[in-house]
């Protein structure tokens, strides 16, 4: 039986948003992906006394070092969406959610090993994933973000994927590349490697029925425990989610070295 997917993202329009719509899929599937617009989540008050308790000392320090306005806003809004989402899931308060980062930058909830989280944001939209099932990675991009011709297809695609892209009509090629990119980002985030993964060493099919990860030669790259999904957000954005299903309850060991096919992991990390 196919592993359950993360499901379509659920819009949350602010801290007082539609949380019942978030908790329902979480109860049914063990996974939920929420999204929000950055502008809806920027707090009116941005003084230290307000933001520091919400962000925590580490992210407050990072926030203060951000000088790029859009990056600041995306950072702040995405952390607030994540903290509010996690607080609802844990029946807790956003201030008590302890967001921490593993070496390499993967976020996690300190003291909540049974929950895995992931977040992503663009200039205007952010996405948060929460699962009880195992490992989860999410990524969002503007659907029309220019990628073809910028070097991304050479840097991030397998030969098979480049052939696939070249076979597509020109008007759909860029959107297909954006979709492939978000899938690769989502998977590498789920594993906790980010850009340390060799994106040219794993590819994706784009069958809507069931997206599969493949090695460059077209053979399967992951087992049935992984599921991948892409979703359109209001036609402007593409969200991808990669979910490794460990079944209900906490995975005993979620380190990347123990959850991937060992030979594929070696290639992706450049060990072989």
């Amino acid at each position, binding site marked *: 039986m196919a592993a359950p997917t993360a499901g379509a993202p659920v819009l949350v329009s602010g801290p007082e948003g539609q949380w019942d719509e978030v908790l329902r899929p979480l109860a049914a599937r063990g996974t939920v992906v929420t999204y929000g617009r950055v502008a809806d989540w920027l707090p009116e008050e941005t003084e230290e006394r307000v933001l520091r308790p919400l962000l925590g000392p580490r992210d407050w320090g990072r926030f203060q070092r951000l*000088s*790029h306005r859009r990056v600041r806003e995306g950072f702040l809004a995405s952390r607030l969406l994540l903290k509010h989402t996690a607080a609802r899931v844990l029946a807790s308060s956003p201030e008590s959610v302890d967001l921490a980062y593993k070496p390499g930058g993967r976020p996690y909830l300190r003291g909540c090993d049974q929950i895995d989280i992931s977040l992503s944001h663009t200039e205007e939209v952010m996405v948060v994933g929460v699962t009880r099932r195992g490992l989860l990675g999410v990524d969002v991009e503007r659907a029309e973000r220019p990628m073809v011709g910028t070097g*991304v297809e050479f840097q991030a695609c397998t030969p098979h994927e480049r052939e696939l892209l070249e076979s597509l009509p020109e008007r759909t090629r860029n959107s297909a590349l954006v979709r492939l990119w978000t899938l690769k980002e989502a998977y590498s985030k789920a594993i906790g490697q*980010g*850009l340390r*993964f060799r994106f040219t060493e794993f590819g994706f099919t784009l069958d809507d029925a069931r997206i599969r990860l493949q090695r460059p030669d077209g053979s399967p790259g992951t087992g049935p425990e992984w599921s991948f999904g892409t979703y359109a957000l209001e036609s402007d954005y593409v969200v991808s989610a990669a979910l490794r299903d460990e079944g209900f309850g906490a995975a005993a060991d979620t380190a990347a070295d123990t959850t991937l096919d060992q030979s594929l992991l070696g290639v992706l990390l450049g060990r072989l």
Partner: protein
Amino acid sequence: MSAHADDTHADNTHADNQSGDLISAVVQAVRRVIDDPVAEVGTDSLLREDLGFDSVLIMQLKYRVEQAVPELGELSLPDMVDSMTSVGSLVAYLRDRLVKAAV
């Protein structure tokens, strides 16, 4: 001044020029990737925090640098991503690559 000293001075000047060329090439690549030809970019500029780089732009920057400085050869993003915090740290990584390639 001895001939040896002159050679050393000449080598240093050559090295300084090369370093300046590399900085200039990276700054130009950064401006091209963020599509802002007059952006204030210096060696202290932080790619993510100051210039708004994300994963896509990081990958595009690697591609532009490879094109601008062909003697670097093909770079490995997993190897260089930890050095891609500031323009200066990226330049230092690339300079080290050039030195190793020349040995």
